[in-house]
């Protein structure tokens, strides 16, 4: 808690609070989830960075999409992302959400996750290690610092396009549009 940290706290406490308290939705979307338990337990201890697993999306502001995203999981991911309170950040974890990874030619997994929900940060690697997660968290801090982690704003602005893409892949969705076009 050195001097310029204190100044930042005084200037923008809300932003600093969002930086140092990232509660991640505990939602195992793909094979990457096997890296989360070691990250939050004794050896790597994510709690030092203020990262805790949260029980429901309502409690969380960080969404780690770990591993390949199959069509069925995409439906749950969209639903969970929409239920998170507003300043929320999503991080693509591993190479599969980025460009399909080793399932690049599979008929059952989606290739570019950010065409369905906005993604603020990526962690490359076919199941990146916990250290890579912490590097991502620190990068997310700088993004939040510079107001570049604006995934939720983009979702609100381009919602119709996101919704169109979702419906093109998944067919009819069982829940009404999040931001109805008033």
């Amino acid at each position, binding site marked *: 808690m050195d001097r310029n940290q204190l100044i930042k706290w005084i200037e923008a406490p809300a932003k600093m609070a969002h930086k140092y308290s990232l509660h991640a939705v505990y*939602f195992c979307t793909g094979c990457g989830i096997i890296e989360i338990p070691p990250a939050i337990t004794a050896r790597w201890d994510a709690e030092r960075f203020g990262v805790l697993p949260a029980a*429901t*999306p*309502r409690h969380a502001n960080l969404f780690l999409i770990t591993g390949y995203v199959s069509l069925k999981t995409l*439906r*749950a*991911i969209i*639903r*969970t992302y929409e*239920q998170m309170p*507003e300043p929320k950040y999503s991080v693509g974890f591993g190479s599969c959400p980025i460009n399909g990874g080793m399932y690049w030619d599979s008929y059952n997994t989606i290739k570019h996750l950010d065409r369905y929900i906005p993604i603020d940060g990526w962690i490359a690697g076919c199941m990146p290690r916990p250290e890579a997660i912490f590097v991502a968290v620190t990068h997310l801090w700088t993004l939040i610092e510079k107001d570049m982690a604006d995934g939720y704003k983009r979702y609100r602005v381009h919602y119709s396009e996101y919704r169109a893409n979702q419906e093109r892949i998944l067919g009819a*969705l*069982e*829940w*009404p549009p999040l931001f109805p076009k008033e």
Partner: protein
Amino acid sequence: MNLNILLMIAVGGSVVTYLLSSISERIRDAFAILVTLAVAVAVAMLYGRTSEVTLWAGFLGNPLLLRIGPISWLFAMTVSAIGCLSVVFSLKYMRGRERNGFYYAMLLLVQAAMLGVTLSGDLLSLFIFWEIMSWSTFLLISFNGGTALAAGMKYFVMSITGSLAMLVGVVFVLVSFNTLEISTVAFALSSAPPGYLWAVFLLFGLAFAVKSAIWPFHPWLPPAHSEAPSPFSAVLSGVLIKMGFFGLLVLMYVLIGRNDFLSLGWEVLPLHTILGVIGAVTILLPTFIALLQTDAKRLLAWSTVAQAGYIILGISFGTALGLAGGMLHFLSHATFKALLFMVAGAVEYRTGGIRDLNSLGGLIKRMPVTFAAALVGACGLIGVPLTNGFVSKWLIYKTLILEGSPFLAFVALIGTWGTILYSYKFLHNIFLGQLPQNLTSVEPAPFSMRVPMVVLMAVVVLFGVLPGIPLTVIDEIGVTLGFSALDVAPWGIVSESGVVNMLNISTAVVVSVLVAWLIFWAGKSGERVDQADSYAAGAAVPEGRYQYSMHFCDPLRRMVTPWLTDRVDAFYMGLTVWFTDVSDGLRRFYTGYVGHYVMYVVLFLSALIFVELLWSPW
């Protein structure tokens, strides 16, 4: 406005209502409301005056008297107020049902009879009005037919045994003191040996105990309340039970007198502690039985039995504070229980007769005013501050602890926690949670049902914040019964032993609510969403299958059920079965063949001769 005119209006009103109903429904409804309103206003005007009128001089040289004093005024006021509200409530509820003329007549007759019971000055008129009240209640309980007949029969059999005991009591008093006028009987009893006291207490006490559904005599209440039409079960549970307490009060502290009553019973186990223990048992068992109920009105009925225990606990301690607590709890229970029954009636009326707690839910979106009434009623039932339930239970707890009986206080407090469980089950399963598909088109309660609910809500909160209003009347009662006076301020009791400072607590609660609201307002406002946007682990909310109300408190239910078999009810049922067997056996005695009858006569004569020869008693 002397009393027999008042009574005349009440009884006459019911007869005229029956006649009017053949002419037109609307006139009859207006007339019924007019009569009950007039009676209520008349009783209100009688406040503070003690007058005595002889109703009819005739009977064996004992005049039938009507007398009004502080006790009878309080009970009469509650009877007429709740009666008037329930008539207003039943306007829409009974609209379009057949025989509702008969229903209104009986309702007014019950209220007139209860008025008569509270105003009666001598034991005979008390008995007469008691009988009228009993069988008119039977007619109303079995109004819906079907299972209601069985419930009515059960009630009728038990209340008849009570009335017979009271009749024997009246005859006993007439024979031993050849006067029936209450004050002279009290004077005569004070000098009578304890045997007389015990006899009078047991005979009259049985009748009053059956009516007030105390623990051993309670099995008639749950079926009767759930089968009766809702407006009447509001009256039944709110006020009719209290006639039993009125009788007990008059019996204990007027007829027998305070110090005789306290000295009654053995040294180690005086009578009033026995009553206290019975009150404690009445609190504990029905509270947990109420938790298992899935029918809204049956849950409320069992809760009435439990709350009756608190009143007995308060009254039976014989201290000024205890009496104040018991009487105030009688008053507050009358208000919030009538309110809850009206809520159940409104929900039943609007959802087409559904009372099952497992198939309702989410009605707050359709019936907000009824939810507010249910919330205030439940808070009163639990005893949340700012409601009158809190003040009355507070006084009862204080007497229990200061009188040095912590175990009764323990049972009473556990009763409160049990009350929370079943009153929240009532609230949650009807109003909160997911609104099922078939209830989406339910309209809010009609205006004529909302008026009595709002009035009762106001009374519950008003007496909670300013308990001084009812406490002044109760203090007068205490003084007339020979208790020490409590100096009452509008916001509570000032006397050092019973300090309850409602203003202090209410301001604390209101200020902290304000502070909490400020904190809430400081945060970012939330988006309003409906019940479909709920966390379902990433899936969409399954329509109609996302409500947890079946077996609401299941772990506790599984643990508690083995101990909750109602042995008293089983005992009564066993008694009836045994009785039918015996009478079946006797039936065989009459074989219908004349020869046998001649043989019986001859045998009997020979037995007589045999006895005469042996012991020659004549």
